[in-house]
């Protein structure tokens, strides 16, 4: 008697401290309090998918600080991008930002990030968990999406979608790979409540450097630095919170809100980090420092166009 057809599977041997399934995210549900989720670093995520010939938004793994150890149950093709972390295939050093072909039984291990925080593991065919509200992205606080709304855990077997013909072997050229580390300068548009801060408060925000705190997560990056003084109170009548909104509660310390953010909130927002710089917030390690510089909306849109244009044609080099 023949059993059910064999599905391509990835067996999770070790999950790492927080590894979740993410796709392009869910849209249209913030008016019900459900955030978009999705990858914090969209560019690295999309490049991982392109390396295995998936659409840019296919469901992949996002790991945090330390990567998972995975075994291919059946032959498959994967790519690892994002945070710079040691990578081995059956204990031999392997290349990130590059298509890797696995035979059944092969084990891939990703270590602790040397630079950056979030890494991506894309598998040809994408990870085929059931979509919730149109997305496979995991929203941990809402116990929604991914593997029953939780992080990936040891001994999970992740089913894969049908992969097209074996993807070609390609690599992202070194000059197109992002560099983490240093003291990134993030472009922000001031507002919507910049008028609720003193001139000194705004000068502190734009002049100082802010350390990323370990309490940061996919909801928001908590920062510490020069106090940002309010002109008249830190509470507002609650309103919507955009991606990258920089909230400043009463203690004058900023929080940059990310993909799993609350949909509304009652703290003043001094500025919004431009979407093309969100990855640099999410890839800054605890202890690393960030700076902010103000641009106007027109400049922000021009920079966004340039950033999109730079990603579109990234030529993945063929490997012999």
């Amino acid at each position, binding site marked *: 008697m023949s059993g059910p057809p064999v599905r391509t599977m990835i067996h999770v041997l070790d999950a790492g401290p927080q590894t979740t399934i993410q796709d392009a995210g869910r*849209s*249209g*549900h*913030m*008016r*019900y*309090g*459900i955030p978009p989720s999705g990858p914090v670093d969209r560019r690295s995520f999309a490049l991982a998918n392109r390396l295995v010939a998936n659409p840019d938004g296919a469901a992949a793994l996002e790991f945090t600080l330390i990567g998972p150890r995975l075994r291919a149950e059946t032959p498959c093709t994967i790519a690892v991008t994002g945070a710079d972390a040691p990578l081995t295939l059956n204990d031999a050093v392997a290349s990130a930002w590059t298509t890797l072909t696995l035979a059944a039984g092969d084990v891939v291990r990703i270590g602790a990030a040397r630079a950056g925080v979030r890494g991506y593991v894309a598998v040809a065919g994408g990870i085929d968990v059931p979509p*919730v*509200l149109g997305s496979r992205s995991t929203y941990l*606080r*809402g*116990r*929604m*999406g991914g593997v029953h*709304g939780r992080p990936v855990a040891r001994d999970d077997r992740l089913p894969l979608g049908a992969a097209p013909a074996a993807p070609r072997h390609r690599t992202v050229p070194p000059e197109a790979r992002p560099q983490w580390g240093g003291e990134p300068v993030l472009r922000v548009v001031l507002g919507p409540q910049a008028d609720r801060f003193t001139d000194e408060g705004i000068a502190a925000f734009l002049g100082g450097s802010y350390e990323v705190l370990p309490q940061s997560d996919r909801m928001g990056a908590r920062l510490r630095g020069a106090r940002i003084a309010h002109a008249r109170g830190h509470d507002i*009548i*609650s*309103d*919507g*919170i*955009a991606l990258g909104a920089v909230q400043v509660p009463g203690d004058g310390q900023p929080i940059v809100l990310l993909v799993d953010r*609350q*949909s*509304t*909130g009652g703290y003043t927002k001094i500025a919004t980090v431009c979407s093309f710089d969100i990855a640099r917030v999410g890839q800054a390690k605890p202890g690393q420092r960030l700076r902010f510089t103000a641009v106007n*909306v*027109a400049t922000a*849109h021009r920079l*966004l*166009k340039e950033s*999109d244009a730079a990603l579109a044609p990234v030529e993945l080099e063929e490997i012999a």
Partner: protein
Amino acid sequence: MDVNTRVRALEYLIAQKAVPGVVETVPSYRALLVYYDPSVVGYDALCGELAALAEQATNTAMPPAREVELPCCYDGELGPDLEAAAQRLALPVDKLVRLHAGAEYVVYFIGFTPGLPYMTGAPEVLTIARLDSPRVKVPAGSVAIGGSQCCIYPVESPGGFWLLGRTPVRLYDPDRPEPILLKPGDRVRFRQIDRREYDDIAARVAAGRFRPVIR
């Protein structure tokens, strides 16, 4: 027309007209956050269009609101602040319950956690400053008041409102095809139930055999 009704009317108009470039909208008390794709529509053009719609929103008829009836058990165990709130408001407990359960509430917006309704409609005598120190853990289903508002906590979360009772109905259930029960603009009434009925409905909810009355 109050400002929140205008906010919801504007959101409705944007959806009706399918304004090009608009990706999603998030209403709150007196603001509407509009997400848009700048590769489809420019900032100035969109602002112009939204300003015109905001004018129109002052006399827009929206489709009739849904009426939702939620059973609520008001007792000391499920509503641990019931007595203290009654004392603070200088009302007998049963009067406080009668006033709270007798009102009709309007969902102004959903926010904070998935499916949490911010509602108004309680009589003015129930206006109460928020708790001096917020609770770290409010149980899911808690029905609470703070300021002039009423809210229901859909998932266990921190909270600064006074907990008067609890509904066994799930406002958020990620396993349902429609995980969120309430929508902005809904009218909500509470039907007072005793502990036995609470436990009975809670068991039916857990078995997927209870639907709140929605008209």
